[in-house]
């Protein structure tokens, strides 16, 4: 009897639903808006808002105009990146001076006074401590500059206009206009860029934005690009132009990254993530003066500290691994040397070498330590003077000294160009991989997002290397 009742109610509700029809939600929303309008009319008294609207409209006219829209956009992005890279130099060198040049020897001294065995001292201080210190020194200042600047632009209301301007390009590649924002955020940090994809509400487009975020050259990779471009690209043109040539090369790599982002978005939306943008609508909020201090505070807490913490958590074991592979011997070779020799052949095919590949494997946790690791490993296998000992990462004060070490390691212009390409096209750092997993909750897509860029990096560097050798 009871069951019969329930079934009766269910079938009644189904019938009623059919009778109400599809218009139900439309009517409901309409009703709510009608009521709201009624209430607003009674309760809200508007002051003269026309002036404010005029200013907004005038700014909008310029920002979205055919002539000024795009140049302005690139100018602002360039300015933000320039401020970040140049501005981060000073606090970075201060932090490096403190953590690497002062605290590190002090810790070593302390360890020897209390009689710590050499392997424990090396493992903890040269390995774990040094990697963590390096990541903090190189990563913290640019992020502490980039994220607040970015958040200020967001708060001011400029970023939604960027998405608006660029949407058509993203539509052509089957993606969402808001991906422009997550992409720009990726220039600061890919992990933060992946988190930022939460603003995209349809799952398919969000996945595309997550997978392609790695093609934005992040803060950890800019210094590598600039260093290598200065040493090798700057050297092939007359000295007067070397600054411009190396800058141009770095910007070229960043633009290449944007090109790959569009290409991969397009390819994904034609194959495995087939479909169309289902829900595109973008609110363009009115301009408002950013709340300066609040913005700085929240961007430091929400973005910088979280990302930095994750990076430290991953960098510590990486430091340990780097020290271990350089100091544990299999027969008469350290593991590092053995790895480098066995990867040399493959590295040669890609126009790279074993040292670079090993450095990219152990430096998965943080792109920041790639160059120090490469220098240390180069010194380790070539046996030239310099460096701070097996497993101790270091960087040289002068750019030319760095160049000398690399050239002693057999580097050519091709190696430099391919390293720059590979630095753009390789797996995301482990912080980003972990963030991708947390955001997608899918092992499959995390794997795709991690493996796809490496494969592209292999293919691109391989092709460049073969064509280079054929022609030059």
């Amino acid at each position, binding site marked *: 009897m009871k069951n019969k009742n329930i079934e009766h109610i269910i079938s009644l509700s*189904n019938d009623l*639903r*059919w009778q109400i029809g*599809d218009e139900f*939600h*439309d009517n409901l*929303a*309409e009703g709510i*808006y*009608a009521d709201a309008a009624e209430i607003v009319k009674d309760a809200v008294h508007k002051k003269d808002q026309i002036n404010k609207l005029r200013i907004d409209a005038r700014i*909008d006219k310029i920002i*979205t*105009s*055919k002539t000024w*829209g*795009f140049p302005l956009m690139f100018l602002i992005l360039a300015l933000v990146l320039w401020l970040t890279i140049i501005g981060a130099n000073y606090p970075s060198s201060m932090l490096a001076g403190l953590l690497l040049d002062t605290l590190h020897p002090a810790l070593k001294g302390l360890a020897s006074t209390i009689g710590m065995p050499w392997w424990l001292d090396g493992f903890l201080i040269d390995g774990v401590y040094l990697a963590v210190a390096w990541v903090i020194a190189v990563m913290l200042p640019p992020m502490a500059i980039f994220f607040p600047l970015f958040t200020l632009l967001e708060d001011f209301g400029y970023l939604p206009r960027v998405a*608006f*301007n*660029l*949407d*058509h*390009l993203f*539509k052509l590649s089957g993606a969402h*206009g808001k991906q422009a924002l997550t992409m720009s955020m990726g220039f600061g940090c890919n992990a933060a860029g992946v988190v930022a994809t939460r603003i995209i*509400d*349809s799952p*398919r*487009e969000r996945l595309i934005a997550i997978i392609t975020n790695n093609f934005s050259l992040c803060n950890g990779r800019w210094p590598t690009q600039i260093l290598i471009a200065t040493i090798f690209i700057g050297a092939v043109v007359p000295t007067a132009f070397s600054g411009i040539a190396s800058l141009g090369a770095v910007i070229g790599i960043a633009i290449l990254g944007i090109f790959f982002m569009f290409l991969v978005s397009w390819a994904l939306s*034609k*194959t495995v993530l*087939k*479909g*169309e*943008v*289902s*829900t*595109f*609508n*973008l*609110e*363009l*909020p*009115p301009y408002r003066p950013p709340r300066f201090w609040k913005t700085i505070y929240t961007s430091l807490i929400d973005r910088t500290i979280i990302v930095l913490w994750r990076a430290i958590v991953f960098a510590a074991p990486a430091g340990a691994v780097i020290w271990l592979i350089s100091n544990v011997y299999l027969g008469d070779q350290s593991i590092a040397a053995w790895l480098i020799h066995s990867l040399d*052949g493959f590295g*040669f*095919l890609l126009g790279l070498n074993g040292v670079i590949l090993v450095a990219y494997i152990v430096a998965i946790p943080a792109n920041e330590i790639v160059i120090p690791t490469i220098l240390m490993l180069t010194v380790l296998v070539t046996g030239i003077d310099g460096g701070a000992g097996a497993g101790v990462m270091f960087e040289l004060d002068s750019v030319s000294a760095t160049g000398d070490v690399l050239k002693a390691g057999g580097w050519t212009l091709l190696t430099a160009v391919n390293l720059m390409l590979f630095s753009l096209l390789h797996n995301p750092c482990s912080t980003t991989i972990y963030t991708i997993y947390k955001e997608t909750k899918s092992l499959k897509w995390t794997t795709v997002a991690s493996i796809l860029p490496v494969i592209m990096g292999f293919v691109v560097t*391989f*092709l460049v*290397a*073969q*064509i280079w*050798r*054929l022609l030059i």
Partner: protein
Amino acid sequence: MNTYNPITALLIFFTISVFLYLLFRPNKGWFWLIKANSKSNGKIVVEDILKLLYHNENADKHLNINDIVRTLKNSDDLILESINKMATHELVTIESDMVKLTQSGSDYALRIVRAHRLWEKFLAEKTGFDEVEWHERAERKEHELTKDETDLLASKLGNPQFDPHGDPIPTNTGKIAKIKGNVLSELNVDTIGRIIHIKDKPDIVYKQILAENIHIGSLIRVVEKNASRIVFHSEGESFVLAPIIAGNITVSILEKDVVVEENLARLSILKAGETAKIIGISKEIRGDSRRRLLDLGFVKGADVSIDLLNPLGDPKAFLIKGTSIALRTNQASKILIKKV
């Protein structure tokens, strides 16, 4: 690396690339073909035959074994074997070559149809797949859904009555709503009606209708009809169709005294400086997307004007209820307005 030579390396690379392309290219890659072949088992053939019989019997056509063999793409042996199997399970009866559905066969067929249409509805409401792909994907999915899954799907979608093409979805008790309407190609000049159904078969005709940007739920008025073409006005635009294509569109005729908004237009044709009132959102915008537009204030009676043009032309920002909202052209074309 003695044998190394850039040209050999490149050749090996391109050979591997071509091989991988042939293996995995979309739709026609060998890998996918093999995968699809290994799946085409007896169950799918049986269900395809049931569906074929069901649709034909609904149109009062009866098929013989030859018709079935000719229509389906599977091998003749497999089809014959399947029909025999179906006869022993009393899904069909065979009387002198004519194959007819039994009651249980008809019920089974209805269940497949239900799964198919529900899945199309799901694709339309919850995913971003292109309309062209709905049918094909549902063709594959209908064989995978069990009865319980189908019922769960139905209740999650709110037990919908019609699929996105306007076809009725059978209920789990086998009830099926009737479409009351006339074929567009048979309407007289000056008839006013609403499009209620667009047939998704055959594929070529359906794609052509989609390319014309004709939407279910649109009001139309026939303005010209002859043997070579049918012209009708709808939502501020004029459409010209060949009669064979118009034959795939069903229209429910509206009473003469229903007031039809004559200067109805699509939001996409609004120009800068013009203001319009919103009349409604087309049925083609469904699910979350529709809900979002309603939330943003695109409701009947709201005033709308262009706020910003885009340097690349698309999207445009519309001023609605004091807020600026950017919409892509394909979405704006599904919002109906009346210029003021």
